[in-house]
């Protein structure tokens, strides 16, 4: 116990002596959270439009007006040449071309049906999908408006579908992303620092020095993990404060549960760092191995794309991904107010993963001699 205290003192002294690192560890994540949470959205606020109106009728102009009035579209250029429009798209001046064919107005009167052409720059896949959905919706609304003006009532015994969006009525994407980004931040910082901190002692030769002292393996590992575990929890708290007061992310569940789960999760995350440190000889290696593992874990975690959209094999693999379980848990507790019983299974998975990886890492450490 006394040895652990002595070693903990050493670790804390070393961590806090490097002012730059401490500043980096606290300032960077906050800045990132601010920047990334705002960046991580697929919503399209203003799309630049090229109008090719070959009809020049009141109806064709009305379609363009409706698009403009929505505030989501800005008419950048217009002409009657599709070639010029294409040119503008290739040069990225516009993201969408709205084509109104020559007989648009006449067709609408005669046959009550007409077609608007929408050409999108799908270089930016997500944005293109969203933009086309907006445009189609606005144009459909205009058609309904024409019906109403003409006194035509929709004939179907329409069913009134009332939609309620639970947990996020405004469909604010940030509420969804912020908890996930928080997880990413504590994972990257915790895992990388653990791996590099231990490998640094290897590189400097101090690890050999410690190995010939009576210092027990468990004490050494505990002294390495506890400070970084605490730092990661402090970082998470800071992140949660920013999430609450800057982004107004709802926190419907128990904060105690969030911290309890984070405490378990961080054992798993730091365990990965510890495991990597047994494989790597240099900090550069440690960083690359860790980065590689974290990258795969993050991409497969459901942070950016839903886990349930993945193919079956990937979903099975995701079961062994602690990041996935923790992101799921954070979102459930913070956004949906899930209780301990609701998240019991991801929490158990985190605990199991932590225990296994820690045991593996400690065993791997024992093998170092010989």
């Amino acid at each position, binding site marked *: 116990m006394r040895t652990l205290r*002595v070693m903990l003192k050493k670790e804390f002294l070393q961590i806090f002596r490097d002012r730059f690192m401490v500043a980096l560890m606290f300032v960077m994540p906050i800045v990132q959270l601010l920047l990334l949470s705002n960046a991580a959205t697929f919503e399209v606020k203003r799309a630049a439009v090229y109008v090719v109106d070959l009809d020049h009728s009141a109806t064709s102009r009305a379609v363009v007006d409706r698009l403009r009035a929505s505030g989501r579209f800005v008419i950048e250029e217009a002409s009657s040449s599709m070639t010029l429009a294409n040119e503008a798209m290739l040069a990225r001046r516009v993201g969408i071309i709205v084509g109104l064919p020559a007989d648009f107005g006449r067709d609408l009167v005669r046959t009550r049906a007409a077609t608007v052409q929408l050409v999108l720059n799908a270089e930016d896949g997500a944005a293109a999908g969203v933009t086309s959905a907006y445009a189609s919706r606005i144009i459909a609304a205009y058609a309904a408006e024409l019906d109403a003006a003409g006194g035509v009532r929709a004939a179907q015994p329409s069913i009134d579908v009332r939609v309620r969006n639970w947990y996020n009525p405004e469909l604010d994407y940030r509420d969804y992303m912020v908890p996930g980004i928080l997880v990413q931040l504590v994972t990257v910082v915790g895992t990388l620092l653990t791996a590099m901190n231990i490998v640094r002692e290897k590189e400097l030769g101090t690890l050999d020095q410690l190995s010939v002292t009576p210092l027990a393996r468990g004490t050494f590992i505990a002294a390495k993990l506890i400070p970084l575990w605490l730092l990661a929890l402090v970082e998470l708290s800071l992140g949660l404060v920013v999430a609450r007061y800057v982004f107004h992310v709802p926190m419907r569940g128990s904060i105690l549960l969030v911290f309890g789960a984070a405490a378990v999760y961080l054992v798993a995350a730091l365990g990965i760092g510890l495991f990597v440190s047994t494989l790597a000889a240099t900090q550069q290696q440690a960083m690359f191995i860790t980065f590689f593992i974290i990258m795969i874990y993050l991409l497969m975690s459901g942070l950016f794309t839903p886990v349930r959209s993945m193919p079956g094999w990937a979903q099975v693999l995701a079961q062994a991904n602690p990041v996935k379980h923790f992101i799921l848990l954070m979102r459930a507790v913070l956004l949906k107010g899930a209780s301990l019983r609701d998240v019991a299974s991801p929490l158990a998975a985190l605990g199991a993963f932590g225990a296994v990886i820690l045991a593996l890492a400690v065993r791997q450490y024992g093998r170092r001699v010989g």
Partner: protein
Amino acid sequence: MTAGELAISAHGLTRRFGSFVAVDHITFDVGAGEVFGFLGANGAGKTTAIRMLIGLLAPSDGSATVAGFDVVTQRAQLRRRIGYMSQRFSLYGDLTVRENIELYGGIYGLSDADIDSRTSALLDSLGLARSAGDLVATLPLGWKQKLAFSVALLHEPAIVFLDEPTGGVDPITRRQFWELIYAAAARGTTVFVTTHYMDEAEYCDRICVLVDGTIAALGTPAALKAEHGVATVDELFVQLARGAKVTA
């Protein structure tokens, strides 16, 4: 020498890395209180041998006891009785002189009172009292080495292993360093030191010359020089190393 007085006893100690034999069946004894020099060119197997003796590396073959403990099966007891100073500087540069001493004192389970008294004694004897609060990284190399040696002796080990302790240090500091070694030996500490400075070998009670992982010569410097008909250990070494596969 009786068994009770043996500080180190190695029998057929061997270490292979793949097909390469770094240390090849070496057998030797070191008596308690001796200053034992372990000589060899770079790559002769000195560091491998020392790492086996302090329990950092498992022998492929053979056995050894240090301070009466087996280096494979009794590592834990062994570690309380030995001190080690590696080739590479092994104190923490980002901790102060005092913090380093307190750390190692704590690891060896010394009481706070012991740490306090030994720290001030150590700082006084090295003339470092004024620098106690300085970061170790800011000390000149010679001071760092002397400090590292003193820290390795802090818990009063029976045997201290020094792996090329004077590498890169000026001659005056080297002399001062050897004075520290003699002082430790005078207090009864066995000193096991590797070096490739041949003049340093003359200071040892006995020396062991390692060539290609095997012992080429073992005895007091005077006896070995007489036996090979040379004037200095340096000449002796050149003569022995001539047939080596691995040269400096």
